[in-house]
């Protein structure tokens, strides 16, 4: 088992708690992304896993071994830095070799590992160059190669694509995922870009205020967020307060909301009588043929190509609706319906 397990991890900086009581398991060969806004504790958590920060509480196990207090140089992890952190005075080949020399890997093994990584990352033309002679994408590949050549149990990525332009980011994203799968590496990836997280990961840990709010597959996170924070952070969502007026045994739940009565469907019973609910803008059906018919006035319209984004006002609040009908204009009144299964029940309200 070359996965990671963390139990009740805690990190305090004076009075400030950066990570509070975080526990998780990451399976061998799994690609997990830590996703959240700035300051949510994702980089702190990554630094604890890599050993650059010692937790003030809890334990970390790598491949079954307790490494909570093991320094980074003695852990079987490799970290890809946001800034790439290539050694500016060493050539690409020397950068790639650095870790192997430190760990005194025998020459034949060293050569075999280098050849594999150089071939895989297409670096053979750049071996004698210094980092400042490489483009951002090439530097990223060298940083990745330098980590991969170590053949670590766990590879860690700290926002590695944030310095790349949009096109290159897409390319490198695919490359990282391919390499992770080819080498069968367990990977932890930190980002605040939800599109990146959804596209690359087996599972995403959404973090907020030093806690993991939800750990799920990208599909589950999108279709069944558990909290209003996750609903709002992953994609766009219309979140509103609701009171449960009745719940029959078939999973159908009647709600009283500011928009009027709504019917939702949930497999699990609600967590209280007053809950937050959400629905995705693209789930609004402007043919209004289904249940939960709502009427609203369009206050703002933005044509996005394959859909039109509408900001609509109803009962003094603003919601978002997406439609494929570009003819709708600001000031129009629209009626739309929502399928009960597309209304998601979130956390109970205090």
């Amino acid at each position, binding site marked *: 088992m070359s996965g990671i397990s963390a139990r009740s991890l805690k990190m305090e900086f004076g009075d400030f708690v950066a990570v509070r009581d975080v526990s998780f398991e990451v399976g061998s060969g799994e690609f997990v992304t830590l996703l959240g806004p700035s300051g949510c504790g994702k980089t702190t958590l990554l630094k604890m896993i*890599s050993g*650059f920060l010692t937790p003030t509480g809890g334990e970390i196990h790598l491949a079954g071994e307790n490494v909570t207090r093991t*320094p*980074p*140089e*003695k852990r079987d*992890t*490799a*970290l890809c*830095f*946001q*800034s*790439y*952190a*290539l*050694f*500016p*005075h*060493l050539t690409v080949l*020397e950068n790639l070799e*650095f*870790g192997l020399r*430190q*760990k005194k890997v025998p020459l034949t093994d060293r050569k075999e590992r280098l050849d594999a990584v150089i071939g895989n990352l297409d670096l053979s033309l750049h071996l004698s160059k210094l980092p400042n002679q490489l483009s951002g994408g090439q530097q990223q590949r060298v940083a990745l190669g*330098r980590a991969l050549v*170590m053949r670590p149990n766990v590879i860690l990525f700290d926002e590695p694509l944030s310095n790349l332009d949009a096109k290159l980011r897409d390319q490198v994203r695919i490359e990282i995922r391919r390499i992770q799968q080819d080498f069968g590496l367990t990977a932890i990836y930190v980002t605040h870009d939800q599109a990146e997280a959804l596209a690359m990961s087996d599972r995403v840990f959404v973090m907020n205020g030093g806690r993991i709010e939800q750990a799920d597959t990208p599909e589950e996170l999108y279709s069944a967020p558990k909290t209003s924070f996750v609903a709002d952070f992953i994609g766009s969502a219309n979140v509103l307060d609701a009171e449960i007026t009745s719940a029959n045994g078939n999973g159908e739940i009647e709600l009283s909301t500011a928009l009027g009565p709504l019917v939702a469907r949930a497999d699990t019973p609600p967590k209280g009588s007053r809950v937050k609910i959400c629905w995705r803008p693209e789930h609004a059906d402007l043919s209004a043929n289904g249940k939960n018919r709502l009427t609203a006035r369009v206050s703002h319209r933005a044509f996005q190509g394959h859909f039109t984004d509408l900001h609509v006002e109803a009962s003094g609040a603003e919601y978002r609706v997406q439609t494929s009908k570009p003819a709708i204009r600001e000031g129009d009144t629209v009626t739309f319906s929502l399928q009960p299964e597309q209304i998601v029940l979130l956390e109970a309200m205090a």
Partner: protein
Amino acid sequence: MTLKKWLLVLALLTPGLGLIVALIGVAVYIAIAQSFGFYNLSGESGFSLEFWDRMLDRKVFNRAVAYSIYVGVISSFLSVLFAYPLAIWLRKPFPGSLAIGAMLKAPLLVHGLVAAFLFINVIAYHGVLNQLMQGLGLWDEPQRLQNDRNAIGVLLLQTWKNMPFALLLLTGAVQSISDDVLNAARDLGAGSFARFRKVIVPLTVSAMQAALIIIFIGALADFSFQVIAGPTNRQSLSQLMVFFKSSGRWNDAAVVGVSLMIIAIVGSGLLAALTRFTMRGRVA
């Protein structure tokens, strides 16, 4: 750049840099000319190799050359050696680091003569150090520490005085290394010494060279520490130069002065080459 712009730049530089270049240039010219027999204040002026010839045969001169190089090289290496760990320690601010940094740099503001006299007072036959060692029962009787034959006192003073300068240069250089680069080395298995040797030194070698060279030149030409705390059985080059000048032998003094300049230039070049060679070209 056009000729007009060049002239403008030269005109702007002349009042400051031009004056310095002119003053140094005149002094260098006079020294070189005097060493070859010109500007003879006590005899006939004219080209002559006699002063060089006589000087190179003098045992006192050769001993002074060796001694000055010894003081220059050891002082510069010791200063850098002590400055590196302090620069790394002070790399990241911590409570009190500013005050510690300021205290460490204080010797830069103390005049060499003052420092030398203070030192002499401390190590004197009936000074504080001797009293302390006797008080602790480590020495039975006072030791003669002043003007020691190996110039340990001079080396101590030179290092004390010059280490802050090396620290000043190295702190800036060490601070310019990003945390990520050092963390990457650590993540790849490099311990503290490996990080120092393979990352910090190559990335700060220019500052180290500057510190070594500037301290070497200063210590090579030392006069005040040598006169007060140096060994009495040998002279430094500047001491010798002052001796000749005081005797009215300006041409001999010029030979010593020019030798000092040559040793400073060659020594600096060798120190720079040595650091580059040690790094095997692996410098940023």
